[in-house]
Every structure is written in C-alpha cells, then in structure tokens.
C-alpha cells in the first residue's frame, strides 16, 4: 500500500477526534482508534488482492474526499431529494444527510413499546451502553480496510432495536442523501437488532444531489435473535460520480429468517458486500440481488454465507443486466463449516449482456467441510432472445418495448421476491413504466 493514500484520512481523523466531546464514550474512542490503525496497516486494496482482483478501487479511494460538512444547499432541493426517495408515507422514515441524522426530514410513526429507532449519534450521546456490545461485534476490522475506515469514523447511522416477541408492521426506511458541492465522504453505521420471535422490515435507500461527487462508505450490522424474521432491502441509486462501498453483516441465531433484496442502479463504482453468518440451527437466509450497470458503471456484488451450524438453509439468486461498456462482478461464497450437517444451499447467478462491450466476471465459491450437505450452484451469461423479441413484435409491441419486457422478465425472479408493495412498485416503475410499459 502507498502511505500517502491514507494520509488524508489520518488528518481528517484527527479533526474528527478533536471535535468528539468529553461525553464521547472511551470504549468507542478506543475502538475507532484501533480501527484507524488497522486501516493504515491494511491500506487501500489493489487488484493484487485476491478479493479485489476485478475491482480496481485505488484511483477512486486515493481521491481526496472531505468529511462532509452540514450542507449549505437550499432546503427546497433537499426536500425534492427526500420526496424522490420516499416510497410510502406509511413507513417510518429516518433521513441522513451526508451521513448525519436529519430530524427535520425524518418522520417516525408511533412505535410499539420498547422499539428503538433513532440515530446512532443520539445513542452515543444519551445511552452509549445500548450500543456498546453491538459495534463491530460480529466481525473484526482485521481484513477489510473499508470496514476499518467506517469504524474509525463512526459517528452516526440508524440504531434500530426491536425487543422480543414483537411484530413491527411498518417498514423502517433509511434514506441516505449525499448533498455536497465538493467531493465528500460519509461513513454511515447502522446497528440493527431484532429480538426473539420478532419481525421487522427495513429499506436502505442511497441517493445524492444531481452531479455531486462523493464517497459513501456504509456498514450495517444486523443481529437476529432466535426465530426472528427480518427483511432487508437496499436501493442503491447513487449519483453517477459516486463511489459506493458498503458491507452488511448479519448474525443469525437459531431458527431466524433473513431475506435480503439488493438493487443496484447508481454509482460510478459500487461494491456491496453481504455476509451472513448462520450461527444457530435451522436458521435460513435468502439473498436476492439485481445489478444493472450502464455506460461506464462498475458494480461489484459479493456475498458470503457461512453455514456454521446444522440444518440451515440458504437460497441465493443474483442477476446482472449489463449495458454499454459497463462491468459487473459477482462473487458468491458459501462456506459450510464442519459442524454444519444437513446444510441446504442453493446459489444461482445469471447475467444478461445487452451490449458487446459489457463484461461480467462471476465467481461462485463453495467451500464445504461437512459431509452430509446439499449444495448447488449455477452461473449463466446470455443475451436477449431474438426469437422472443420477434414474437412480441409480431403482436404489435414495438421493438424497444419488447426488449424492455424481456429485460423485466429476466429481472422478475428477483423483483417478485420483494414483498413490500411500495418497493416492488418502485422497481417495476424503473424497469417498466419508465420505458413506456404498464407496471405488473
């Protein structure tokens, strides 16, 4: 690694640390200090790193991004960004601008007793012990420079806690807006805990001010206690000049169900890492993803599922639709630990290339150390079916709409898995209505 690349972050860290008041908890200051050192040691990864072989992050991460100050952007522009992001007024809404909670744009409906939905900054200020055991608990910063970086700069994000035996019907919608006029970075850190037998739904949306250049480095930590059910959605709509890196880390106790629906549309370079630790028997996860790069966009999707206990199930479908000179990377690892007998794991990843210049690198990886397991995986890369286009056209559907319909058909395996109506409609609108076809 090249020392100078991380120097800018050192300076920024000093400024941030000086600004942290006396009330800033000691344990968090220490954690953040350790993380900064780890980041410095690891450095910014290069393509010589096996995990970064297909994604060259160095030119982006070496750019100088300032820690975003509070924006001096007219409220009306922020309002229209918020309105664009809102999916349903019925959702609990937590808006973050440049990584910081923005109370005036947020709206929480009445919450069931005991449920916490607040900003991490608030938690740090008023009851830091509630998050003490939850920051960086389920993974170390040892191996990921960007998780380390996020941890060093930990400041704000969403803290959501659902106690045992509780169903929260309204989804929580976290809206992250980057609103800057100079290159800026934010490090949102979200902490989610769903109690025993409880259920909740969350949506993360990432957006930015048109034309803005910025770096989002987000980390979401999820713990699911016994038999908890949690549906997670992520709508990545960053601006075309943005660098978007994110890790979602899920720790699942026995009998818990996790489903993830990842949709990637924006960003110049984006990389989403999703790690699921099936840490109790009969835990189950479903990971669905759709990435649609166009132009020169680069989208990297990584998933890792650890089958650490027996009788767990995982289902995974990732689909890519690539146009222009875009590039997609899919890396899906399934790691079956020695004790994880009766594992049932299915993984499929498919890519549709709409142009001759688009490229996709896919790498499914199965590592199996138990003997009584069922693991399947398959990968395909293809193009639109010309016969089907002809068939649709011969029924009067114009060629471009016929293509849209087939693209939607390809994506629909992933889209129809979304149970939250407003999210599904949002996706159908992007995939269909914006191209002149009715939503389903």
């Amino acid at each position, binding site marked *: 690694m090249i020392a100078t690349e991380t120097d800018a972050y050192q300076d920024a860290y000093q400024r941030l640390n000086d600004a942290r008041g006396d009330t800033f908890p000691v344990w968090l200051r220490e954690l953040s200090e350790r993380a900064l050192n780890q980041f410095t040691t690891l450095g910014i990864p290069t393509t010589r790193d096996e995990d970064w072989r297909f994604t060259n992050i160095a030119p982006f991460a070496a750019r100088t991004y300032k820690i975003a100050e509070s924006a001096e952007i007219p409220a009306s522009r922020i309002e229209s960004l918020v309105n664009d992001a809102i999916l349903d007024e019925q959702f609990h809404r937590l808006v973050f601008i440049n990584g910081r909670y923005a109370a005036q744009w947020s709206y929480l409906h009445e919450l069931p007793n005991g449920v916490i939905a607040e900003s991490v900054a608030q938690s740090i200020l008023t009851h830091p012990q509630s998050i003490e055991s939850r920051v960086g608990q389920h993974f170390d910063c040892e191996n990921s420079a960007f998780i380390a970086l996020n941890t060093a700069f930990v400041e704000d994000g969403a803290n959501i806690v659902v106690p045992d035996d509780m169903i929260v019907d309204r989804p929580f919608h976290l809206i992250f807006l980057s609103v800057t006029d100079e290159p800026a970075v934010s490090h949102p850190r979200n902490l989610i805990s769903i109690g025993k037998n409880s259920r909740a739904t969350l949506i993360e949306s990432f957006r930015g001010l048109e034309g803005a250049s910025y770096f989002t480095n987000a980390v979401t930590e999820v713990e699911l206690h016994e038999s908890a059910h949690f549906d997670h959605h992520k709508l990545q709509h960053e601006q075309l000049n943005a660098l978007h890196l994110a890790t979602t880390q899920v720790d699942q106790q026995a009998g818990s169900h996790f489903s993830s629906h990842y949709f990637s549309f924006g960003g110049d370079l984006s990389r989403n890492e999703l790690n699921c630790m099936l840490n109790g028997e009969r835990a189950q996860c479903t990971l669905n993803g759709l990435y649609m790069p166009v132009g020169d966009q680069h989208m990297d999707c990584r998933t890792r599922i650890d089958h650490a206990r027996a009788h767990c199930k995982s289902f995974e479908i990732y689909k890519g639709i690539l146009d222009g000179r875009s590039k997609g990377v899919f890396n899906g690892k399934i790691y079956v630990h020695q004790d994880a007998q009766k594992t049932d794991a299915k993984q499929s990843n498919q890519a549709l290339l709409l142009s001759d210049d688009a490229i996709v690198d896919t790498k499914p990886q199965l590592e199996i150390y138990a003997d009584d397991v069922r693991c399947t995986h398959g990968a395909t890369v293809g193009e639109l079916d010309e016969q*089907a286009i002809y068939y*649709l056209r011969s*029924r*009067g*559907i114009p060629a471009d709409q016929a293509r849209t*319909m087939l693209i*939607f*058909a390809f994506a629909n395996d992933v889209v129809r898995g979304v149970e939250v109506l407003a999210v599904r409609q949002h996706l159908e609108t992007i995939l269909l209505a914006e191209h002149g076809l009715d939503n389903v």
Partner: protein
Amino acid sequence: MLEIKNLHAKSEDKDILRGINLQVNVGEVHAIMGPNGSGKSTLAHVLAGREDYEVTQGEILYNGQNLLEMNIEQRAAAGLFLAYQYPIEIPGVSNKYFLKAAMNAVRKQHGQPLIDTTSFLKLLKENMQLLGMDKSMMERSVNEGFSGGEKKRNEILQMAMLQPKLAVLDETDSGLDIDALRIVADGVNTLRGPDRAIIVVTHYQRLLDYIVPDQVHVLAEGRIVRSGDRTLALELEDKGYGFLETHSAAASAAAV
C-alpha cells in the same frame, strides 16, 4: 386485401420461396397445403416480417400498402396476425400482462385510447371460456411449460383478443385432438367475416372440414403448384403428395 407477386425469399444462402403469386380478397379463407419443407412457414414469417429472411424479388401489397416496407410491429398494428407453428416461450412475462401490452401497443399505434383493466379482464375471460382454457393460464408465463395443444389455443386466444384483419394460421391443427381441433376451428370461424381474411396453413385436409376454405393452394419447393377449390384438398388426401412431387419436378424442369 393481400396480393403477393413473384415473391422470392431466402435465408442465408438457401433460396426458399421461389416465385409465389397469391391473391386473397377480403372475406375469403384460403388454405395452403404442401409437403414438409416446401416453404409454408417461411411464407407465413415473411408476411409477418421476420428478419431472418431476405426478400430478393417480388412484392407484397396489403390493403394497397407495400407490406415489405413496414416493420414487424407496424404489420401487426395494421391487422396482420400470425399464429405460430411453434409458439415461443417467454419465461417471466405473464400471459395476461403480455396480452394487455399487445392490445395496448396496437391501440397506441392507432392513437386509440388504452383498454381499461376491467374491460380487458372481461374480454379475456369470455374468450378463454370459448376456447376452454383454464383461468390459471393467465398468470403463467407466456407459453412456458404449456403442452402443444395449450400453446395452439393460446395463439388462437391472442387472435381472438387482437381481432386481426388478416390471420395466418400456421399448422394450428397439428398436435390437436379432435375436440381441441373443433374448439380452435370455432375460434377461427368466429373471426370469419366480410371485412377479414384468413390463410390456413395445414398439412391435413381434416381441419378444412371445420374451416371450409374458398380456395386451396398447394405449395411445393417454394412455389404454388396448384390452386383450386376445396375439392383439391380432398384430392390431395386421396393421392398423397407423391403426385405433386413429380408434378413440381416437372414444373421446375420446365422453368429451367
């Protein structure tokens, strides 16, 4: 309604249609018969506008318009409909969505208002009942996993919904049992009328017992070698295509 003059078409390097002449007037039903590989489906697809075929000579007039200058969807919007011999499967698009999109696409091209969901569903239900189709087929992906017979009925359903002016049915009868054949024939006969025309491509005279044609043409090696009334179909059934092969061999020998 349709006038085909000296039509030649090829795919890659293979000449398939070699001088077709055919006139179909409005209100008429024509049958095209002929051995396998004689070019029946190619003719149907050239009418629909499939881009795999290149028309090298001749012209096609459709209601006075130059059909060959229209693209595939314009032809469909102008009322041309091809019931495929081998309908295409489209995983991920429901039959219902597809049908509504097709109807609205045609309406849009004519600047007509779009059909509302209620009227669409009502029409769909009626037509499916007439064709003896199960409701569940609407939610299923277009033709995916349909049996041969279900696919053929689905083609006729599309025809019934789109109400074309000129319908070309390419071996819609093959693979149908007698009951299904009757239902499909009823569907076609319902469409029959003074302002429409129908071309029935078939291998067997059987279908023509139900859809009685005004004229029968025999296609062999890319040319129409015989035309006549419905008794020609019976004659063919009697004598088989054997007598045609000698006939057409003689015809092509004569043409050299």
